């Protein structure tokens, strides 16, 4: 800092602070935000977030288009899993529910231990196990944290065919186990994250 | 009517004033002091001196605040040390208090509780601030200036004391 410009700078600073210039600048910024659009997603009862496809949520087991299980019970996913949370017990089967005669008798994942790393889907030779876009996993019932093959084979709530993420309007669905709020995929606003 | 109010305020003021001395916790004393001062302010209102009342509250609010700060920051609230320290002064203090009461009793016995209106009519007194201000800046200008000068000296003295301390340290 040299002296000659010091005086000029000090005068400038003085005028600036006497006229509250910085203050006005700050107020202007916040005023701009006040009238800007809110970025809140009114989850869950009005809007719901649809994650992008690379999202890693709860596992699903996929089937072929003819409805045969893709899983061949090779246990590679279970071996690859760093937290050892997948249990696979294979069995012989010739009724043709799988693509081969070897299917999983038990295919169980313990989501409390899972860290959603996605190693299982990388290890799978048949692309049977995928991490889906299901993210509403919180529960008050500890037994709901373990998912069996039966549930994992059910179709995803957000099918694979929906590309990209976004915000969808929420829809109330009444069924015999109570009211559920699901995303109305027809009214979805695509977002780019 | 006014008499009743006066007695209410006066009794509370005296009780509070006694509590200031009696209560063991200095912070309680500060609280009672505020109560006492507020009652005195109320009595000023009864005496048709709202300006004095407001000033009383206004000035002593700050004053008691400072007192409170000192109580918390400086005083170590250990009762024993206070008692020990006070011991040698006890007789002198009691003597001073007794003397003060004698003087007060003498003055009180000669006066009356109601106030004379003085040279002012009701209408003039309604403009209380003007009356006080005019008196202060004309008739009593010399004492007023002397008092402000004394306060200034006290202020400067306090600053000088602090500055000396700092200088010797560094």
């Amino acid at each position: 800092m040299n002296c000659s410009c010091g005086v000029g700078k000090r005068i400038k600073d003085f005028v600036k602070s006497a006229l509250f210039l910085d203050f006005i600048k700050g107020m202007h910024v916040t005023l701009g935000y006040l009238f800007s659009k809110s970025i809140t997603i009114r989850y869950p009862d009005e809007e719901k977030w649809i994650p992008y496809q690379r999202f890693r949520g709860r596992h699903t087991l996929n089937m072929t288009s003819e409805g045969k299980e893709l899983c061949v019970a090779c246990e590679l996913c279970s071996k690859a899993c760093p937290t050892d949370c997948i249990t696979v017990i294979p069995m012989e089967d010739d009724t043709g529910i799988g693509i081969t005669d070897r299917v999983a008798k038990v295919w169980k994942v313990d989501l409390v231990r899972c860290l959603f790393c996605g190693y299982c889907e990388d290890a799978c030779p048949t692309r049977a196990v995928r991490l889906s876009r299901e993210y509403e996993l919180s529960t008050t019932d500890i037994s709901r944290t373990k998912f069996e093959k039966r549930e994992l084979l059910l179709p995803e709530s957000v099918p694979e065919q929906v590309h990209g993420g976004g915000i969808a309007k929420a829809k109330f669905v009444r069924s015999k186990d109570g009211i559920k709020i699901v995303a109305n995929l027809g009214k979805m606003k695509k977002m780019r994250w | 009517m006014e008499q009743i109010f006066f007695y209410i305020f006066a009794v509370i003021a005296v009780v509070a004033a006694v509590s200031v001395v009696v209560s063991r916790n200095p912070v309680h004393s500060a609280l009672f002091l505020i109560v006492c001062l507020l009652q005195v302010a109320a009595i000023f209102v009864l005496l048709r001196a709202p300006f004095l009342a407001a000033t009383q509250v206004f000035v002593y609010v700050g004053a008691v605040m400072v007192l409170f700060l000192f109580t918390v920051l400086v005083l170590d609230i250990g009762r024993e040390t206070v008692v020990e320290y006070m011991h040698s002064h006890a007789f002198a203090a009691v003597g001073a208090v007794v003397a003060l009461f004698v003087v007060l009793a003498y003055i009180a016995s000669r006066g009356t509780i109601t106030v004379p209106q003085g040279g002012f009519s009701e209408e003039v007194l309604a403009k209380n601030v003007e009356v006080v201000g005019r008196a202060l800046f004309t008739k009593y200008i010399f004492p007023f200036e002397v008092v402000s000068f004394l306060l200034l000296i006290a202020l400067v003295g306090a600053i000088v004391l602090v500055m000396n301390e700092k200088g010797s340290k560094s």
Partner: protein
Amino acid sequence: MIDLALIITIIIMVVKVGLLTMILFSLPMPLTWIERKVAGHIHARLGPFRVGPHGIMQPMADTVKLLFKEDIVPEKADKLIFKLAPLIAMIPAFAVFVAIPVGGTWTVPFIDQEMNLYVTDMNVGLLYILAMGGLGIYGIIFGGWASNSKYALLGGMRSAAQMISYEVALSFAAVGVVMMSNSLSLVDIVNTQGGGFWNWNFFYLPVGPVWFFIFIIAGSAEINRIPFDLAEDEGTLAAGFHTEYSGMKFSFFMLAEYIALVTVSVLAVVLFFGGWNPPIDYTIPFVPIAFIWLFWFVIKVSVFIYMFMWVRFTLPRYRYDQLMNIGWKILIPISLVNILITGFMRI
């Protein structure tokens, strides 16, 4: 025997005070909602949205929550003062409003009776307000001390030191107004500003705006608003003086705080922006003048309340030494110079 006029005066007085108290008690509810909405939108959020349309019932929900919350008194606290402190904070906040005029004297149509739109016209109104406003700080200090917690104590101490420093500047600003308006009575102060906005004290150039800024800065320091809310500095003191309070006692502190916010806004309007006077005098046929007064009064006060909220969510908090510097080294010298200039202008 019975003096009818006196009884009517007393009844009117009681009704006015009752009305005022009711308004003041219910005012913090919409204010909390507005404050949270403003906070939300400035942060590009929505603010409360779930209780009622646009979250309008949120304050009710909060009140119910506070009513049913356990009222904890810390074991090592000074119980009496701890319980008294919220009241000490709240009562002066209400008492201040006795002296505040929301309108002038109005002749009620049909019954041809004069009515004052204020409780009393005190001869020393401004002094009374400053004195009462100062008393409110004791609630904070005693509450902080009585909690027997270091955060609360530090909050209380900061508040005391801050109040001592800024009371001076605030009083100087009041002195400036008194010099410009030639009266301590708030009704007179407003009346001298009537006629049009060029008569407002704010436009008493060149000193008016300076007094206004001194007043608003010192005022926001007095009521512990950001950027001067060191008494409840969340970053360093948990919640400051009310760390240990919960339930209704806590809500009393909140009440006092919001009423103080209203007080400073009202004072800013009364002292600098012509009180109830409209910017340009006008009358609308068949509309009583009192409505016009009330309309402008409420509008102006709302603008100031909004300003305070806006500032709150814009500025960061000052550091303690900066706070003291602003108080003693900037505001007070400027006030002294300004008093001199104002004095010369009034000769």
